[in-house]
């Protein structure tokens, strides 16, 4: 039985919430390992890792900077430069937060790289989510390739008329300056025609919608989703209660 996209979403979402709420080292590390294992099993690890690195490396570094250097409750000073003190407590806190964030981000990325977007859109339509919202969701994933393709057409046309683009990021960026305005104009023009087509095909109609694509679902999965959401809610409540009791 295939995993329903909403089950996947519920699993990833509740995992992220629970690890954040629990704030426990071992749990966070287990989730990180779990997310990587799921991604490796699904064959998406090669795309997941660069995306995760792009999000997590700057985030973890900033956590280290903020908490590692300036942690008010830090007592064990490891190094000191003027007002900045590196404390063991600060580093520990930063690492704990870092692993927590890693766990949440990896769980959500593992989901987003493995889910079939058409299935997710169809499932959302079936749940009565507005067609416009589902369209926007799907478009965000198709827009980038479309823009890249359009930019390539324009660059090709310019090259055919003597624009020499040398290798290297700087040269490419300089050349992109010439493509930006026509790119935006072309996209706006394209959007105009498409809007008329979508209107004519009843895209804005407010009545009920049906879905051609069927996404198999089961009572067990529905139950699982309910349990996952309840668990996430319970973990948050528990965390708030502990905070209230402790503070």
């Amino acid at each position, binding site marked *: 039985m295939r995993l329903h996209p909403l089950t996947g979403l519920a699993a990833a979402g509740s995992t992220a919430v629970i690890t954040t709420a629990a704030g426990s080292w071992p749990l966070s590390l287990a989730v990180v390992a779990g997310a990587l294992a799921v991604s490796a099993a699904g064959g*998406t690890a090669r*795309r997941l890792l660069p995306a995760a690195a792009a999000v997590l490396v700057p985030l973890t570094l900033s956590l280290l900077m903020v908490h590692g250097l300036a942690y008010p409750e830090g007592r064990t000073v490891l190094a000191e430069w003027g007002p900045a003190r590196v404390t063991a407590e600060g580093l520990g806190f930063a690492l704990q937060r870092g692993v927590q964030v890693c766990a949440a981000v990896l769980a959500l990325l593992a989901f987003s*790289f*493995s*889910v*079939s*977007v*058409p299935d997710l*859109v169809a499932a959302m*339509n079936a749940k009565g989510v507005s*067609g416009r919202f589902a*369209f926007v969701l*799907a*478009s965000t*994933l*198709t827009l980038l*390739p*479309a823009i*890249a*393709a*359009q930019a390539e*057409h*324009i660059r*090709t*046309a*310019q*090259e*055919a*008329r*003597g*624009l*020499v*683009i*040398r290798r290297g990021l700087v040269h490419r960026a300089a050349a992109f300056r010439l*493509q930006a*305005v*026509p790119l935006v*104009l*072309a996209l706006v*023009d*394209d959007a105009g*025609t*498409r809007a*008329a*087509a*979508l*209107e*004519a*095909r*009843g*895209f804005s*109609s407010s*009545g*009920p*919608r*049906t*879905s*051609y*694509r*069927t996404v198999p679902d089961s009572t067990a999965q529905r139950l699982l989703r309910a349990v996952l959401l309840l668990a996430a809610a319970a973990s948050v409540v528990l965390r708030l209660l502990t905070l209230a009791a402790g503070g």
Partner: protein
Amino acid sequence: MPLPTGPVLEAGIQSFTFHDGGGPVLERIGFAAAPGTLTAVLGASGSGKTTLGRLLAGWLTPGSGGTLHGYLELGGTRLDFGSGRAGAGANGQHRVEPRIDPAKWGRQVGFVPQDAAAALSTVRATVAEELAFGLENAGVPRPAMVAAVARTAGLLGLTGLLDRNPARLSGGQLRRLAIGCAVISGPAVLVMDEPFASLDAAGAHELAALVRHLVASGTAVVILSQVIDGLLLAADQWLVLAAGTVAAAGDPASLGPDTGLVPAGIRRVGGAAGGALPTARTAPAATGNAEVPAAARTAAVPAAPRETAGAGAALELRDVSFSYGPDSRRPRNKGRWLARSRNAAPPPRQPLVLAGINLAVRPGEIVAVTGPNGAGKSTLLRHLNGLLRPTTGSVLVNSIDIAGRAAGKTAAAVGLLFQHPRDQLFERTLLREVRFGLDRLAGAAAAGERAAAALAAVGLQGAAHGHPAELSASGQRLLALATVLARRPSVIALDEPTVALDGDGLAVLDAAVRSAAAEGAAVVLVTHDLDYARMAAHRLVALDGGRLTEC
């Protein structure tokens, strides 16, 4: 042919004006289409036929899209627009303007735009789901949708492609899908804008059969076209537009080429080509008909310079093979929007598109490359200026191997006219468009002069400061041609240059190609239009299955 019943779609347009402050684009047009008939709306580029088509189909709604004085009547319901003002009729008192609901209108009138890809939603993963998109929005129950998709796919020959991603379809398949999306809800009227442009002979034949089927099953089919072919000769009525108004109307027999009622800008091709092509002032008299005697054809094309092949060739391809590998640059995807999900598997390694191509073109020679849709003609042309690199083999321009040279450098010697002018035009004014890159090539002083001369050569000098997007399709094509001519390249590569050109545009193209060849340029043109290829070229070669053969 007598009309079986009253019209299902009718329009009486006193005037239609866009909100851009210009004059009326349509004036004094009467239109009526009865069930089970074929109507051809004929007009040269810029005659207003696309505006009329979009208005009839509800893609351009009076009010938000422009100001309409007149009426539209669909299935017996009449909507009067612009009443209470000039020419509103007897009841001159103030009334609320009716509004068209595009969705409800669209269920009864299907429309297929000239750019078929623009009609697709881009967010559906398969052809089947794209077909069902309109039905989903209307809340049609799934079993009925499945049946409708199967029926429509069968009708359009899309059954084998139902699970394909729409972004991976060829141009012809894309057009069939767009037609399927328009007819799946069983509209009483189907309006198609230039449906035959860029279709090869086989594709055009299938489309003609489909139109006949739809007409026989009771649909009122309206085809907007600047070209008269065999199918349109058999239409029930013609409405000929010129400068936004009716130039002539009636059945095809009463509007034959001898009557002079159809403007010269509207070409007759294939079986409909009875007379001569309109010829440009500078071009020798030429006929565009496949049936003309060989002697007449030879007379039409100036003799090619006599030199031995290979030696002194302006362009030479030596044993060029090519396949789209993972590292090669992809050419334009025919679907404008690459709706590929990032979760989709990478495309499988494709077979050879070009296999051991050898071709030498001498200065002053015009070579036509023909072949069916998808044969790799555009891929071949992109090798000439280095936009694509051969997997094996070499390309020589003026006896210099262009391997390793940037495409922008090779562009000094090779001018390429793209298949879609929209891919080639990116500037704000016509003059800037033609000048792009000229400064570097010819120096600032000469650039302005050359740009103006190139615009004049294609007859667009009057619109030099206008925006390229405001030109008609034919005008855009000619502007793209001007950008190529202004660079005075020694090799000119033209990709489907006749598509979207009206009769006048074709005459300009023809004159420009001949004069460039006469001045020593080597011309390679790719076309599926055999009539034009035979008329314009010294030599024909066919590309099929990746191999070139002399015709």
